[in-house]
């Protein structure tokens, strides 16, 4: 992990909106975070709180009618929002790669996986000048994800099972040796064994290839298993970020994160302490005043219903956006380093 602490990807006060005018919703609002080289960065949150949107914006592929309306994303210091398409295309796949949520629909159904791999190789001749070399690399990656190259090359997407597709998608993402791989819910919808397999693969890849991983999930157990750093989102906003230990073990934390952790029945014990979080994620088009989590929060106070809490740290990288949790600490705005 020689490149540790070098910031690769920096999200700066990003706001992404879907639609415009009255019906528009801000799926991501004023989010700032930075991913350092060598990290495994987890984005966590309930369904619909903007995780995928944030992930898409990292590659500038937010689906219509979504668009970035504020802030920027910087990769190795280069702003991507205003980047020309040509430069973006050079980055995509080669430097930043993405595995889509579900991975079920990530492949062209009428072209073999092999041909799609070739397309990628041809689009980035700077990575592998020789097609054969690239193909061999892919074979190697397939072995890493425990798949047999022979079968995959000629297969159509429809001939693969869900777990296999997920792994092929991971291999494809790694094809051009990108420095960052973004995975959107790579373990969701997989059963325990496939999930474990993917977790192990991610860890192995991280260890062996030194690739930086950003992954989106709503499963805290997976976070605990894989991540080094975590950002928790709620209704389009960041509510807490920190190292995985800080998230799981620190005293000061966001009631939402706490509630999330408490809501999981664990196999580790009979789990009589689990408690559901009441209510549901608010509709982004109809947000409550003040803290967005206030309606569901156990430790809610009047202040929470009036002002949105800022994201504050106590000096380290552990930032929390909660009036109650932050009461004790010296307010210190997060540095934009």
């Amino acid at each position, binding site marked *: 992990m020689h490149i540790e602490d070098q910031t690769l990807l920096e999200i700066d006060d990003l706001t992404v909106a879907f639609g415009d005018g009255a019906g528009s919703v801000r799926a991501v609002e004023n989010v700032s975070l930075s991913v350092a080289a060598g990290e495994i960065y987890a984005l966590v949150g309930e369904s619909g709180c903007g995780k995928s949107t944030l992930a898409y914006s990292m590659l500038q592929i937010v689906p219509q009618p979504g668009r970035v309306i504020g802030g920027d994303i910087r990769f190795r210091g280069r702003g991507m929002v205003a980047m020309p398409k040509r430069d973006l295309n050079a980055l995509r796949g080669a430097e930043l790669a993405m595995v889509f949520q579900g991975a079920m629909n990530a492949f062209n159904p009428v072209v073999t996986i092999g041909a799609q791999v070739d397309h990628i190789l041809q689009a980035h001749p700077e990575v592998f000048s020789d097609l054969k070399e690239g193909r061999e690399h892919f074979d190697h990656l397939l072995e890493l994800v425990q798949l047999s190259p022979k079968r995959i090359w000629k297969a159509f997407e429809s001939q693969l099972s869900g777990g296999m597709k997920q792994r092929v998608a991971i291999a494809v993402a790694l094809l051009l040796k990108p420095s960052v791989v973004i995975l959107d819910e790579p373990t969701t919808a997989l059963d325990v064994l496939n999930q474990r397999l993917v977790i192990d693969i991610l860890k192995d890849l991280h260890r062996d290839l030194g690739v930086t991983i950003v992954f989106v999930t709503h499963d*805290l157990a997976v976070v605990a298993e894989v991540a080094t750093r975590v950002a928790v989102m709620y209704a389009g906003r960041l509510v807490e970020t920190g190292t995985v230990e800080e998230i799981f*073990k620190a005293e000061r934390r966001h009631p939402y994160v706490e509630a999330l952790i408490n809501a999981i029945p664990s196999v580790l014990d009979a789990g009589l302490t689990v408690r559901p979080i009441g209510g549901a994620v608010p509709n982004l088009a109809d947000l409550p005043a003040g803290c967005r989590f206030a309606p569901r929060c156990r430790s809610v106070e009047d202040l929470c219903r009036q002002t949105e809490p800022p994201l504050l740290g106590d000096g380290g990288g552990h930032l929390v956006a909660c009036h109650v949790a932050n009461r004790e600490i010296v307010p210190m705005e997060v540095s934009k380093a």
Partner: protein
Amino acid sequence: MSLLDVQNVTHTYDTGNGRPVLHNVELSTQEGEIVALVGESGCGKTTLGRLIAGLHEPSGGSISFEGSDIAGLKGKRRTEWRRQVQMVHQDPYGSLNPGLTIGSTLAPGLLRHKLANRRTVQAEMITLLQQVGLDATPAFLQRYPHQLSGGQRQRASIARAISLQPKLIVADEVTSMLDVSMRVAILDLLLSFQRERGIGFVFISHDFGVVRYFAQGGRIAVMFYGHIVEEGPVEELIKTPSHPYTHMLLQAIPVPDPVLVRKRDAEGGGSERLVGEPATKGCVFSNRCPLVQDVCRKEAPPLEDIGTGHRTACFFHDEIPPLKHLAADGASPQAARS
């Protein structure tokens, strides 16, 4: 007399590739008992659940409810059985008819089984909705599924299942499509019916955490490609699995505690053979079993009792190593905090 008796059931789908999805499955439950079915994706859990609920007829074997084979039920008795076995599906989006209001989803069953008449049906439905913790107003009955959240929908479909006062509910991955925040509430709701009304459950899940939470005091049956490979009381099976497959499943569960994870990872332990096809000869698991021996490849081990209602289909169940990280005390994140 047990409530449900699955005897030697084999099933092959007409539309499938001809391979049986279930092989000689034996399972029985008592009234008010919870039996959990676990296993990897595609192992036949849902299929077994659907057979139990009578949505398909098994291609072989028989399923008896309260002592009588459901295939032979006729007339009134069939209606009665139909009422007593219900199912709650996995997908809260798919299990409610998008074109019908909640009211018209709930009413036909009540009317059909004469649990209400035209006059009382509305009041009856409101009571039901109250029982599942929904906003029980007449206006709510007029809502369409798309106007409800996932959790509300799942509650509505639970309301539909309990509306017929069943004795057995097949709950197929009822929480897997729900947000984490809502899962426990739904499980608690179902549990309350088990406790208060003595409704028995066939609870399908691949999440041991959920199973352990829900099926306390009940039993777990572990399935592998259509075979029940191990069956036993919840705590015992989780703490001391007697089949390498169960062991593998438990071992694979991600642990929501980074400290524990580090500790476990440091101890090593590979993830080989997590996935793969079943063996066609001998023990079905022999292809992927870390403990496999020659005999396993030749001969299929029978599902044998190894003490107090705990059965396993492994020749070498004694040799299964203990699950270290699960056994560790105070390992839960909740515990870690305190």
